[in-house]
């Protein structure tokens, strides 16, 4: 993306106190897990948090970098398992997803938005121009004196014509449907992967809503 040329600094590039070497070494040995959010509502990310105390059982084996549990903005190094919330709706989503794909061994679509587009994909049956008009020009909540206009700035992500499922942009390895899926379903998949079992989401916890 062009923004790096504009002297922007991402949070992970800021100076930080290093962890003590022992803790760092212990963490480095574990399975690295991360989760990013694209065009979604953060509901699935909350479900990731809903793994609750189940996660404690796995902490011997895994460490969680970028996710709703931490405030890491960019995965600091290669990850074994990456979860993705949300579909692809702008050029920044594409860049984020491609970077994630390059740096994760296994990628998992979490939730309806990532799996097929979900709620944001409801705009796929309406031309983009009409969406913009509705959102910015004909919108009843604009300031009375302002001139309604469609925002444009090089720093703003460019909206894609349609909303795409993640697997239409990069290869995705597994899918967890639901809006959002329960923490239980996310945990099941993570637990299977960490323990080297074949990933299986039983009918009882698979759902689309």
């Amino acid at each position: 993306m062009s923004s790096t040329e504009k002297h922007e600094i991402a949070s992970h590039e800021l100076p930080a106190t290093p962890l003590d070497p022992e803790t760092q070494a212990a963490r480095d040995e574990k399975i690295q897990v991360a989760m990013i959010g694209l065009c979604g509502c953060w509901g699935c990310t909350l479900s990731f948090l809903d793994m609750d105390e189940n996660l404690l059982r796995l902490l011997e084996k895994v460490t969680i970098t970028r996710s709703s549990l931490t405030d890491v903005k960019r995965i600091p190094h290669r990850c074994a398992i990456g979860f993705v919330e949300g579909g692809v709706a702008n050029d920044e989503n594409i860049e984020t997803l491609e970077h994630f794909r390059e740096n994760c061994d296994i990628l998992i679509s979490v939730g309806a938005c990532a799996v097929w587009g979900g709620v944001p994909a409801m705009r796929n049956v309406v031309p983009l121009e009409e969406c913009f008009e509705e959102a910015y020009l004909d919108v009843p909540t604009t300031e009375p004196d302002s001139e309604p206009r469609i925002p444009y700035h090089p720093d703003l992500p460019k909206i894609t014509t349609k909303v795409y499922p993640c697997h239409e942009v990069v290869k995705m390895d597994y899918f967890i449907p639901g809006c959002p899926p329960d923490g239980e379903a996310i945990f099941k998949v993570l637990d299977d992967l960490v323990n080297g079992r074949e990933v299986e989401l039983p009918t009882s916890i698979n759902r689309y809503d």
Partner: protein
Amino acid sequence: MSIRITIDGHEVIAQHGDRLVDVAADNGVYIPTLCYQRGKPCLGTCRACSVRVNGNVMAACTVPVSDGMEVEVNEPEVADMRKALVELLFAEGNHNCPSCEKSGRCELQAVGYEVGMMVSRFPYRFPVRERETAPEKLWLERDRCIFCQRCVEFVRDKETGRKIFSIDHRGTHASIEVDVALANKMPDEQVREAAELCPVGCIIEKGLGYNDPIGRRKFEIKSIRERALKRKHK
């Protein structure tokens, strides 16, 4: 006449001419269906019950059993074929379950769970289909129609016996239509039955929806598999 057939290698005794899908259910083998309803004439439109009979793929609701038949239901390749058919239906319409009135009561959704669908292997098409809201008591959310023809065949004007629903055009242009004058004559009871009959959330009764809380909806109380297996007619 009693006959013997095998289902996935297990011998089963049945009556000559019984429908394969029913025989399987009576013997504890679930075959998903979307258009077929036990006790009603077979439509054979959805093909979700496809199985292999003596080596050929057939819709189990259309097959009368005969002696010596060898049936494969859960053989991986044919099971995956059924799954693909269900995935096609999801890719072909717009199925946003979280916002659908039928969610939890929807046969397509329930069958999706049974075949283990996580995602459609086919590209989602996002077709543009206008909804039909003209009738007074019901409306058609065409995004969700799977063209099973249940409403076309089984919902008729009480007085004249005329069809109330029909399918216009073919292929990607196919569209479920309703005769508004006849629909407005439908008693409330019949409207409810039609909405219930539709396996998806296409025929919706106006003023009704999201009545049962999540966790207490039809297929959450008892799955579609359990319902199909338990309904023994004898």
